[in-house]
Every structure is written in structure tokens, then in C-alpha cells.
């Protein structure tokens, strides 16, 4: 199944540790491997602090990985030097959308300059007029009134700001976008606006997404494949439907059992599944494909059961 | 609680201008130390007002052997611990002072006493000093050559006896703490450590003249801030406020308890003649002198604590051996007083001439001076005056701490400098010798052969002829003043406030006050 698809990002044994060698060492991402295929939406879920953001930030090279490889279109970008030309090119090919609509826009810059920052850096606009024109196009693309480009971010609502952030990412014409919880700070009624927009853009431009989120129903809705992260490891990875219908890892099961559903009947009858870290984790476990396209972090014995 | 203390008759409280730096009479250099040594120790003689009276010596002796030998009979007096004061205590103290290991700055004042110079230079042992205890109560001093002012020197604190066991015990720290110190003067210093801001002296019952001493206790308080000092005095926390600075002096001059005492000290400007040919020009020096209105300086800045002096020899330190006339009143000196007076027109004229003569281009100079409040104001004033009347002159003030000023003076690191000289002993010679060629204290390096000859003659050929010596000194002074080798500014006065009930508080020619006779009503 995987062969006919083209991986755009390949993550191989990625480790990202912080405060190495100190008492407060954190293994935020601990030996993680997965592929993201061109055109798909790759969902990443997991509890708070499990290393989702760190994974995303390592891939986009906001951090220098402690070890492991990250291949983008087959090229290892984990060791690119910060000011190298390759890095610069890479910076236009991969972009990120952030969680906090308030913190992700510089409050002292006008919307126009925020969106045009990428254009300026990569020299994508030859002159001022072209620059303005591009910004207008981008604003239009995210359904914002181009007349508002001389305004400051704080004049916009959360959803609008999030769309400005999307426009900024789109400005450099990336092929791959990491969206780190782009909707969790938004109101329910506005979340849908942003999700729809992301999907429209993906369709129009053939983008690939990595979508990080808490909200499992939304992830399920938007993603083609989903990885579940727990304590710095990916514990399960499969197609979205597969994960929901056939969760194999106890943590995934517990997570699914906890999703609140806006349906009193389901809620009244649901059983929650508890997850006990110490019972389900041990040294023999590794990340392996237990069914076609379905990966699981488990020991070989368990794996055999599913195969 | 009320801050106004009640005034006790037995206790005298004095506000002092500074702390005691040392109570070691070998090392003391300043007036405060001198005052407190005078309070607590007794030398051979003591000044009572202007009069020299016997101290441990039983009488004021005349020299023998052509003025080269003095033999002092001593009275049977006691140290405060009851031990007798003997001639050996003097011998010990004097030898200690000249011993180079003691590093006394006043060792040089012993020069003239047999071998003193050689001992300081490390060439001879202190034991060879020309001072001997003939017996416990007879002290004999032998001089290399007559010292005309030797008798007056004997009232200086440098020549006081020292109780040897105290020094043996305290070692280098002798004189830094009252603990362990033994006194033979009218008072005993108690509970004092060096740098203390206040100290107390109590009557010494062992003092030979103790029955004359009325006060039971003398308290000193240091207050540096002029407001504080005055507030203390006005609220009767202290009975006497000493050394009132110019500005305050001016303000309190109308107090009826205000008094001022002439000091044997003059302030003058020296010009750096080694560095600048410009200043070797007489007209330039005279112009500088003429440009300064000393009257205004005295009235407005010094608060009348700077009296006129024609020469660097102040008034009130010596009298003509025949006529009894004060040195400053000698007609020869009066005749040159004009050179030390204000004459702005002449100043400008001479200045211009001098510039022409020397061809000096750059007229920017610095004026080094002390950084006390009054000194700063005074220097500012002088700066203003000179710049006003000496065209083209650009003066930068460089007010520095006392020690820095001395340092700059010694190393010639100045263009002009305001110097003060305090008499080491009450005699014009102490002033005149420093301006002789080659003298270490001659900071400006002014040099005049004729002057040098007169000064030298007074100390050698004419040493034993009082009148001839006197004339030499007058002539030298006349030359110095006319030449403005040093440009005299004023003779300093000490301004004080003393409560009306404090009586008999008299200044002595060496600047200290004799507390033996003071009493309160």
C-alpha cells in the first residue's frame, strides 16, 4: 500500500532531548520513526506533554535533533546548517501554523508585513506593488478582506488571526505544512471555519499536512492517517478509520474511550478504559508493523498475535 | 526625649574638625593630634597663651657652649600609672623619632641636634643622637650648630616624652588605641580607638600641675557637616565649635560668642617655574598677584578667616628682638605689601607685557587646590578673578584631596597650585627656608640667589646674633614678596564659637590650645 505513495517526509529514529546531561533532562521525543506521504494529512494526537509539538518543531528544524534523520523529499535536513542556502530553500518548502492565535502574530507589525515577511526573506516579490498584490491574493485566499492589511493583529478575532497565520505560511508557497493545534484555542463555532479553509487549500494546492491536535474527533475528521503519541514515543500509527475502529494499543483505546461526544445517549452508556503506564510499557517493546499499514509499539509476542 | 543636654561645669564639650590620626608623638603631623597630645602629655615646656612656661623642665633654660648645648633640669613628676617621668623617657622618645625605622615625618625637625641628620639617613645609630640623660632628672641636648628657635621647639609635641613599656607592648600600633597608653599631661585619653568620631579625656590626677586643672572631663566630637556642627553648638550639645569653615563663619560672625584666632599659617600660590619659562617671568607672577581681590575673598568666601598678609610669613609669630615689633610690621615688609594687593589694571598690563616678553602662546593652565568646601569655593573665586583680569587665561580647576595635592606638589604635577604652610615652630625661618633653592618643599622651584644667601646667613653666621638674624630674615622676605616667588593669598584664622561660660580658652603660637587653664563658670 505504501509503495505506490511517495513519502514527502521520512522521520527515522528521531530523538529530541532537552537539558542533556542535567538533572532535569527531558526525552521529549524518544526514537520516533514514521513517513508522511505526499498529499495526505497526517494526524498526531496524544496527551499534553507527550512530545507532539517537539516532533513538529524538530521536523521543521526549529530544534536541532539530538539524533536520527529527517528526510524531506529524500534529503536529510536534520543536519543542515542554519545559514546555508539549502536551509533557506527548505525554509520555503515547509511551513508551520501555530496554536495560539494571539501569540503567533507579532503585535507590533501590520498584517501586511506579517504576511509579506516570507516574501521579503525569499525575495518572492520584485517590487512593492507585487508585494502588495501577493498579500491581497493571500488574504483573499484565507477569506479575509484585503482592505484590512494595514491593520494590526489585535483588531482581529481569534479565527481571523488564525487565518492570517495561515496566509503567512502560504506566502512562501510551501508543499508541506505542520499545523500545531491550529484550532484548539478557537471557539467551537469558529473551529469549523478554519478546518474548512485548511481543507480547501489542501485540495487546491495539493499540500501535505501534519496536523497536531488534542481534539480527536477533529483529527479523525481531517486526517488520512493518525499517529498516537505517548511519552515521547509513537505508540500506534494507522489509517484514521482503522485507528478508530480497531485500536490496538491500550493507550489509544483509553484515549478513544474518553472522547466526549455531543450525544447524551452515547455518553450515558459509555465505558471508560483506564490506562496504566507501568503495566503497558516495558523494554522489549519496539515500533513495528503488525498489520498492513498499522504500526504498533509493542513487544514481538503481542505483534505476533495481530499478524 | 529632649535633645538639649544640661551643661555640666566640670565637663567641656568641643566639636573638633577631624579625628585624631595618631597619639604617637613621634608620628603625629597634624593639629588635632597635636592638640590632644598637648592635652594629655607634657613636654619640657608648654605654651600658656603666647608665653612659654616650664613643663617637665623646671625652668626655661638658656643654651651654653655658643648656643650648642642645652641642659634641662627636670621636675619629679609622674606618669599616669604612678611611675616617675625621667630624662630617659625623653631620650627614648627623641631617639625613636629620628630612628629611620620609625619613619617620622618630623624627624627632619631634629636636624641640627647632633647626628640627627645622619641617623635619619641611616648612617648612624639612633644611640648617637645628641641627647643624654645626665641623671634621671637632667636632660642634656647637644647641637651641631646653634638653632635660634630651639627653645620654642621644645613646646612641640614631637619633643614630648614617651613611656617606653607602652610602646614595647603595643609595638607598631602604639598611639592607635588609648588602651595601654600612659600619660603625663593634664588629661588622660580613655576608651579611644583611632578613627573614633568622639573621644573623652579625663583629668589626670598624677599630673604635676593637677591642682591648676579645673576641668574634670573634656569631650571631643567630630562633626564634618557645617550644619550639624552649628546645630550641636546652638542646642548646647557642645560648648565650643572649632574651625568653622568660611561660609558658616561668615554667617555666625554676628554671634557674640564668635571669636577667631590667628594661625601661624599662610596660603599662597606657587607657579610651576620648572615646567614653564612663562612663570619665571616676574611680571607674570606679579600680574597674578594683582588680579586677586583678597579683600573680597576674605569677606565673601572665607568669612573673614583669611587676614591680609604681605608676605608668606604670617603676622603674630615673631617679634623684633629689640623693638618688639611684629615681623609683618617691619617697614621693609610693609613697603612691598603693594605687590600682594589687588590692582586689576596693573595686573592686566603686566600680564600682557609678560606674555610679550616670554612669547607664551598657550594660556591654558590648571590650578591645583584642596577639595574641602572652602578651598573649592576659594579656588573657584580665584579662577574667576584671574580669568577676568588676565586676558586669554583659561584656568581649569583641579581640586583634589589633601594627600593628592601634596603629591602633585612634590612631583611638580601642576601649573599653579594653592599651597598652605603651617609653621612647624613660631619663627619666620620655618616659612622662608622652604622657598630656598633646592628645598624639597619649594614646589614651584622659584630660585633667587640673593634670597638664598640671606636665609642661609640667618641660620649660620648670624645664628647667635638675634638682631642680625632678624634683619636677614626681613631682607629675604622683602625680596620674596617683591619677586612674588610665592604669591601670598592670606594668613588663615581659626574661627570658633565658644560659650560665654567657657573661660581662658587661649590659642598658643603653635596653633594648639592650652586646656590647663580653661575653666567653666
Amino acid at each position: 500500500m505504501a509503495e505506490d505513495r511517495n513519502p514527502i517526509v521520512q522521520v527515522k529514529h528521531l530523538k529530541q532531548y532537552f537539558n542533556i546531561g542535567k538533572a532535569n533532562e527531558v526525552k521529549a521525543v524518544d526514537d520516533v520513526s514514521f513517513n508522511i506521504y505526499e498529499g495526505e494529512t497526517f494526524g498526531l494526537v496524544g496527551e499534553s506533554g507527550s512530545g507532539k509539538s517537539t516532533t513538529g518543531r524538530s521536523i521543521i528544524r526549529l530544534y536541532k535533533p539530538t539524533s536520527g534523520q529527517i528526510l524531506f523529499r529524500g534529503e536529510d535536513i536534520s543536519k543542515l546548517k542554519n545559514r546555508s542556502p539549502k536551509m533557506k530553500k527548505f525554509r520555503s518548502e515547509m511551513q508551520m501554523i501555530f496554536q495560539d492565535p494571539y501569540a503567533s502574530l507579532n503585535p507590533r507589525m501590520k498584517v501586511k508585513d506579517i504576511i509579506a515577511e516570507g516574501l521579503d526573506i525569499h525575495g518572492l516579490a520584485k517590487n512593492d506593488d507585487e508585494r502588495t498584490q501577493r498579500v491581497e491574493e493571500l488574504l483573499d485566499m484565507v477569506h479575509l478582506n484585503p482592505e484590512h492589511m494595514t491593520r494590526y493583529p489585535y483588531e482581529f478575532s481569534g479565527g481571523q488571526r488564525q487565518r492570517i497565520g495561515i496566509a503567512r505560511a502560504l506566502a512562501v508557497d510551501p508543499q508541506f505544512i505542520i499545523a500545531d493545534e491550529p484550532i484548539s484555542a478557537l471557539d467551537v463555532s469558529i473551529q469549523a471555519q478554519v478546518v474548512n479553509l485548511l481543507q480547501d487549500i489542501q485540495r487546491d494546492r495539493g499540500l501535505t499536512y501534519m496536523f497536531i491536535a488534542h481534539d480527536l474527533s477533529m483529527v479523525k475528521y481531517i486526517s488520512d492517517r493518525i499517529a498516537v503519541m505517548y511519552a515521547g514515543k509513537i505508540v500506534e500509527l494507522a489509517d484514521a478509520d482503522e485507528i478508530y475502529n480497531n485500536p490496538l494499543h491500550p493507550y489509544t483505546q483509553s484515549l478513544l474511550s474518553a472522547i466526549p461526544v455531543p450525544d447524551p445517549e452515547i455518553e450515558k452508556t459509555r465505558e471508560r478504559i483506564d490506562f496504566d503506564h507501568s503495566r503497558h510499557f516495558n523494554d522489549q517493546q519496539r515500533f513495528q508493523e503488525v498489520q498492513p499499514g498499522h504500526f504498533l509499539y509493542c513487544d514481538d509476542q503481542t505483534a505476533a498475535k495481530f499478524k | 526625649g529632649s535633645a538639649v543636654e544640661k551643661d555640666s561645669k566640670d565637663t567641656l564639650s568641643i566639636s573638633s574638625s577631624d579625628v585624631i590620626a595618631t597619639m604617637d608623638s613621634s608620628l603625629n603631623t597634624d593639629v588635632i593630634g597635636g592638640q590632644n597630645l598637648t592635652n594629655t602629655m607634657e613636654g619640657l615646656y608648654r605654651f600658656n597663651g603666647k608665653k612659654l612656661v616650664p613643663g617637665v623642665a623646671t625652668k626655661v633654660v638658656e643654651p651654653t657652649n655658643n648656643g650648642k648645648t642645652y641642659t634641662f633640669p627636670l621636675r619629679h613628676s609622674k606618669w599616669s600609672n604612678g611611675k616617675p617621668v625621667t630624662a630617659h623617657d625623653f631620650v627614648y622618645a627623641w631617639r625613636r623619632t629620628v630612628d629611620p625605622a620609625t619613619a617620622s615625618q618630623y624627624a627632619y625637625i631634629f636636624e641640627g641636634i647632633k647626628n640627627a641628620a645622619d641617623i635619619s639617613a641611616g648612617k648612624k645609630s639612633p644611640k648617637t643622637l645628641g641627647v643624654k640623660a645626665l641623671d634621671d632628672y637632667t636632660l642634656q641636648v647637644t647641637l651641631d650648630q646653634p638653632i635660634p628657635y630651639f627653645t620654642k621647639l621644645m613646646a612641640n609635641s614631637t619633643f614630648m616624652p614617651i613611656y617606653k613599656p607602652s610602646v614595647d607592648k603595643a609595638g607598631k600600633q602604639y598611639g592607635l588605641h588609648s588602651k595601654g597608653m600612659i600619660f603625663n599631661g593634664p588629661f588622660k585619653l580613655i576608651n579611644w580607638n583611632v578613627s573614633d568620631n568622639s573621644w573623652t579625656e579625663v583629668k589626670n590626677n598624677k599630673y604635676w600641675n593637677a591642682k591648676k586643672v579645673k576641668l574634670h572631663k573634656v569631650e571631643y566630637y567630630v562633626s564634618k557637616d557645617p550644619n550639624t556642627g552649628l546645630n550641636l553648638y546652638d542646642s548646647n550639645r557642645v560648648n565650643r565649635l572649632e574651625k568653622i569653615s568660611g561660609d558658616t563663619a561668615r554667617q555666625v560672625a554676628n554671634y557674640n560668642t564668635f571669636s577667631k584666632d590667628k594661625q601661624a599659617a599662610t596660603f599662597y600660590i606657587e607657579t610651576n617655574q620648572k615646567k614653564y619659562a612663562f612663570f619665571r617671568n616676574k611680571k607674570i607672577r606679579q600680574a597674578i598677584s594683582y588680579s586677586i581681590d583678597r579683600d573680597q575673598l576674605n569677606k565673601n568666601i572665607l568669612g573673614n578667616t583669611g587676614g591680609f598678609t604681605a608676605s608668606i610669613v604670617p603676622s603674630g609669630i615673631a617679634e623684633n628682638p629689640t623693638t618688639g615689633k611684629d615681623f609683618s610690621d617691619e617697614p621693609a615688609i610693609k613697603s612691598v605689601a603693594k605687590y600682594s594687593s589687588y590692582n586689576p589694571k596693573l595686573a592686566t598690563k603686566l600680564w600682557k607685557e609678560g606674555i610679550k616678553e616670554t612669547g607664551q602662546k598657550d594660556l591654558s593652565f590648571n590650578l591645583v587646590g584642596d577639595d574641602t568646601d572652602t578651598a573649592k569655593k576659594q579656588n573657584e573665586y580665584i579662577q574667576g578673578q584671574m580669568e577676568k583680569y588676565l586676558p586669554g587665561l583659561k584656568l581649569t580647576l583641579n581640586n583634589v584631596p589633601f594627600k593628592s595635592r601634596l603629591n602633585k606638589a612634590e612631583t611638580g604635577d601642576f601649573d599653579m597650585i594653592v599651597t598652605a604652610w603651617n609653621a612647624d615652630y613660631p619663627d619666620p625661618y620655618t616659612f622662608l627656608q622652604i622657598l630656598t633653592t633646592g628645598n624639597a618643599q619649594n614646589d614651584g622651584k622659584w630660585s633667587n640667589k640673593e634670597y638664598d644667601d640671606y636665609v642661609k646667613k640667618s641660620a649660620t653666621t648670624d645664628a647667635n646674633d638675634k638682631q642680625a638674624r632678624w634683619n636677614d630674615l626681613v631682607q629675604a622676605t622683602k625680596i620674596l614678596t617683591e619677586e612674588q616667588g610665592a604669591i601670598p593669598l592670606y594668613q588663615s584664622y581659626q574661627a570658633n564659637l565658644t560659650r560665654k561660660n567657657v573661660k581662658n580658652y587661649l590659642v598658643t603660637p603653635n596653633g594648639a590650645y592650652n586646656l590647663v587653664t580653661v575653666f567653666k563658670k
Partner: protein
Amino acid sequence: MEQVPKIPKEKFKLLNKQDNEASESLGTPSLTYLQDVRRRLFSNKVATACLIILGLIVLISIFAPAVAPHNPNAQKVEYSNLPPKLGNLNIPGFNGMQDMGGKEVDAYKQVGAPKGTYYILGTDYLGRDLLSRIIYGTRLSLIVAVLATLVDLLIGIPYGIVSGWKGGRVDTFLQRIVEIVSSIPNLIVVILMMIILKPGLTSIIIAIALTGWVTMARLIRAQTFQLKEQEYVLAARTLGESSTKIASKHLIPNLSSTIIIQTMFTIPNAIFFEAFLSFIGIGIPAPNASLGTLLSDGQKAFRFLPYQMWAPAIILSLIMIATNLLGDGLRDAFDPQSSD
């Protein structure tokens, strides 16, 4: 519960979706952040008053040569220590009368000053006009303040940004230096400097330069630490913005409130500093006046000539109070949350 009200039927028609589709309009008026700050600042009466007072003082200092009635260094010793006199108005304290040994006398008459001679704030010990000296003194004190601010800006900010941005070992090293510099009471550093260099404006500035930037550097570092984790900075990094550009485009503008507020503390500190140095006798050398030298001279003459202290003290306190309150006002104005 409620009665269904009578309403004409035609009102119950569905609105055209086109008409209704909420256009993405912005509710808030278009104010830039700075405009907003300005509005908040000016609505604070105290801060505005302080701004005006400081503005006036700065203007007077800048135009001191034109404003000062006399040459501040011109001595007229005959007229020394004259009390304030404001024309012929007989305002107590400004009528040229002085207490002399318990009697009120006209000091001007006493020194034989011709009619029409008057000094609004009196004269000092050399007969120099106190008002002019205060104007020039303020000017000098403000120069010290401005220079101290420059030091803050030119050393403190870059230092703090580099330390915070680089983090890690660079930060540890730079912070060690800061730690050492701030473990020496800064006044002592200054005094040491003043002893070695000769007293004067340059020395004061060098001394301040050596120590004054530390607080600013600390604050900026802490803020930079926070800012660099801000998502908009991360966004700039993912776009490939260079560090210097990030510093100038993202960090400094967002540090501006910290910078301005800290500056508002640097200014009075520098002025105080100079005053203190002058008081212990190692400040600005004569004949130039600074508020510090004027105060220290005035303080000494306080018993008899209190006006010589009051005038500079009031000006100094005014500057201090105004900068402090303005600093408060700015802090509030820069903080969008303090909207009440």
C-alpha cells in the same frame, strides 16, 4: 411564559442569504498599538501632567542660553548670597529680605545693589545667579541622564538580547559577568572610577557605562527568553529570517515597553547618582553647576540660606517625581490589560 406578541406577518420572511452573510468587518476602530498607548497615556491625567512638566524642563534646559537671565558662572562677589527677590512684588520669601542676627534686613540694600537689581532665586556664595545656575545645572543633570540612557540602550539592550537569544553557554558566561558587576555596589565602582579618573562628566559617564546597563540587560534577557519562545518568533524562524532581522523586527519592537519603562528608572537614577557624587565631593567640577553640586552647596548653607537648598531640591524632586509617575503611567499605557 411570555405572551406571543402581535407582529405583522410580512416581518417573518427569511432574509436573503446574500444580504445576511456576515461580511468580515472589524468591530474595533482602527488604532495602532502606539495610538492606543498614547490614548491610554493621555487619559491618565497625572502622567500627562508629568509629561508636560518634564517636557518643559527639557525645553528650558535645551534653550538654557536663551532662557537663563544671567551667565551661570559670572561671579559678582559683592552680591553674594542674596536671597530671592521677584521684582518689587512683596511676596514673603521672594522679597529680598533676610534674617540677620534676628533682624529682617533688606539684603539687596545692604550690599548696595542699585534699584532694579533682583535675582528671582537669589545668588550663591560667589554672587552667581541661582536661577541661571539651576537652569544650567538641570541641563547638565539631564545630559548625564541622557547619556546614561544611551549606555542602557547601546550596551544593556544588545547584551540582554544576545544573552537571552543565544542562551546556553553564551548566556551562562554573560550572566556570570552580570552577576559579578552587580555584586559590587555600583556606587563603589563609580567611586573607584572617579578616584582613578579625574572627576568630571566623562568620568561619571564612564562610571555609569561600566555598571548602569546591568539592570536593563537583565530585564531584556528575561524578556527575550520569553519572546524567543513566542510563536511569532518561531514563525519568523521557520520562514528563514536571520537572527539580526528577528532582533530588529520582532524582539526590539516588543521589548519597547520594557525599554521605555526601564529608561524611566534609569533617568532618575542617573540624576541621583550625579547628585550623590557631587555631595561626597567627586562630582561635576567647578565652576560648572549640576543639580548635585547645587544641592550639595545648598545643603551646607541650609541653616542660614535655606533657599539655596530648597530651589535645587524642589527641581530635583520634581524631575524625580515626574519621571517616576510618568514611568508608572507608561507602564500602564503599555499594558493593554490595564484598561480600567
